[in-house]
């Protein structure tokens, strides 16, 4: 009798359904944090948190929010559907490049134009890549997503007369809201205030929509497929089709993040199409904790700070990221969220 093999991380994930209750108070923290984020630009003079409200820090946070969207979208696949993609750079970078090409060839400078182009290109790419990739799971899925995304990277690198090769495409400050908010002269002011709010709102929308998707019957079906493909089939779920839906949705949201990234960075280089960038998205997600919904949000923001501040202090930030990742996998597979959950459990025990 070959009984069902429980992988030991089943034990790790025992908490998931229960944590939902415990995290209820976390809803209040979340609301407080959201409020803080909304008021941030006006808190520059406040003693303790003033430093966080500086234009530089707000731009950093904007980067963090953009990465968070990408990580959340990625986690719809990894955490919810059980598919580890090493090719999400294709959707992020693809969308950013769509914005860049829009500027270069059609001279469009509207952010909504960027978003539309980014979303569309990510959708198309994800639909095509997905139709190929979802035939596989596990390691082959990872390698296939990686290989396909590398095609895009190679094209961006080699067709330099279109993409400017390694120099990349520059993206000027766009107009927002169909031109209602024009381009002001001060780029820092634009990015740290106007664009900060723009990204914040889209971030909230994306989090809300993805949150609903994750908790929808569809989201439950994805989790069922992740847990047990055969049984999912035997409750009547079209496994491959649902994987494809998940892939496309995930790619589309990653595309939104990529489009938001383009003007923030001002430049799209092949770096954001390379598979190591996919690896960074993976890193953010695992850092935050891929076994929970909010983990990737924390991961995206934390990653950006890590990159910004560690790069400043050491030339060897990659090594540090690597060490953190190895440590996460070996001793903290539930990421930052896991640490919080562990802390609160200790707290409860102490009481």
């Amino acid at each position, binding site marked *: 009798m070959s009984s069902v093999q429980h992988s030991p991380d089943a034990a790790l994930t025992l908490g*998931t*359904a229960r944590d939902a209750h415990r995290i209820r108070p976390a809803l209040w923290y979340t609301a407080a944090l959201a409020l803080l984020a909304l008021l941030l630009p006006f808190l520059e003079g406040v003693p303790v948190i003033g430093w966080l409200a500086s234009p530089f820090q707000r731009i950093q946070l904007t980067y963090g929010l953009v990465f968070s969207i990408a990580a959340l979208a990625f986690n719809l696949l990894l955490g919810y559907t059980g598919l580890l993609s090493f090719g999400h750079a294709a959707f992020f970078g693809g969308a950013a490049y769509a914005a860049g090409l829009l500027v270069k060839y059609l001279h469009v400078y509207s952010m909504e134009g960027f978003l539309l182009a980014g979303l569309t290109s990510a959708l198309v790419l994800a639909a095509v890549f997905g139709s190929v990739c979802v035939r596989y799971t596990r390691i082959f899925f990872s390698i296939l997503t990686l290989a396909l995304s590398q095609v895009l990277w190679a094209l961006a690198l080699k067709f330099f007369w279109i993409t400017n090769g390694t120099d990349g495409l520059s993206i000027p400050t766009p107009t927002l809201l169909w031109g209602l908010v024009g381009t002001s002269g001060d780029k820092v002011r634009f990015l740290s205030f106007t664009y900060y709010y723009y990204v914040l709102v889209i971030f909230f929308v994306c989090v809300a929509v993805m949150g609903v998707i994750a908790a929808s*019957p569809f*989201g439950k079906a994805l989790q*069922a497929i992740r847990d047990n493909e055969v049984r999912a089939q035997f409750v009547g*779920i079209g496994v491959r089709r649902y994987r494809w839906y998940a892939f496309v*949705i995930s790619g589309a949201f990653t595309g939104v993040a990529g489009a938001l990234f383009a003007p923030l960075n001002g430049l799209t280089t092949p770096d954001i199409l390379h598979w190591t960038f996919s690896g960074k998205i993976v890193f953010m997600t695992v850092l935050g904790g891929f076994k929970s919904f909010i983990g990737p949000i924390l991961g995206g923001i934390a990653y950006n700070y890590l990159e910004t501040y560690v790069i400043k202090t050491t030339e060897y930030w990659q090594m540090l990221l690597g060490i953190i990742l190895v440590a996460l996998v070996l001793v903290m597979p539930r990421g930052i969220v896991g640490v919080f959950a562990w802390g609160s459990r200790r707290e409860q025990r102490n009481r």
Partner: protein
Amino acid sequence: MPLLFAQGLRKSFGETRAVDGVDFLVESEELVSLVGSNGAGKTTLVNLLSGLLVPDAGSIAFQDADITAVPVRDRIKAGIARSFQLVNLFDQLSALDNVRLAIFSRDGTTRQVLRLAERNRHAREEALEILRDFGLEDKWDTPAAGLAQGERKLLDVALAYALRPKLILLDEPTSGVGTREKGTIMDAVAQLVQARGLAAVIVEHDMDVVFTYSHRIVMMHQGKVLAEGTPEQIRADERVATALLGKA
């Protein structure tokens, strides 16, 4: 006409003929037990009927429609559900979500992408009711992986039951469970099946259980049907006793 009618089913694995020319039928609301020693082909037969395996030869008709080559999803839509001998659940989902998922899938609501599962009151209530029927209501928010073996077996059956099938195939619903628990499980299962008027095929070793609940017993041996009849007929059948003892 029978609810399910299989004719001349054959399935080989390498050189072993796991199912070797089996005719098998189930009437509406009938509870059929499938018995036989190890390797008799019972699980393979269930796998053929449920669509996990495709037969090498033979045909299967359900409600007069040929389903021999129909994919699993469509068989479920037609009304055939099954449970598994080795528990097969969504381990990280709560007991409630396990059952609720079957309900969503049955109702076609798994397509709802932008509606909270929690908002579907009907699904929630029905799922809780099913959990209650199977004595699992206290464990509704426990992830399936955290349930005891007996509870997992029950939840496995509950998933199939929640699909509101016309025919339910239960592959050893009490295997791997302690002696004390198995009676409880079979009682619960048999009562629910009969209360709903489902037809059921139960693979079971416990002859007491089989004799108590079955309308009809089909005895398999080495891939073939050896004997078939009411519990009384089977009890009296010499061949059955010898096959079970292994003299054959």
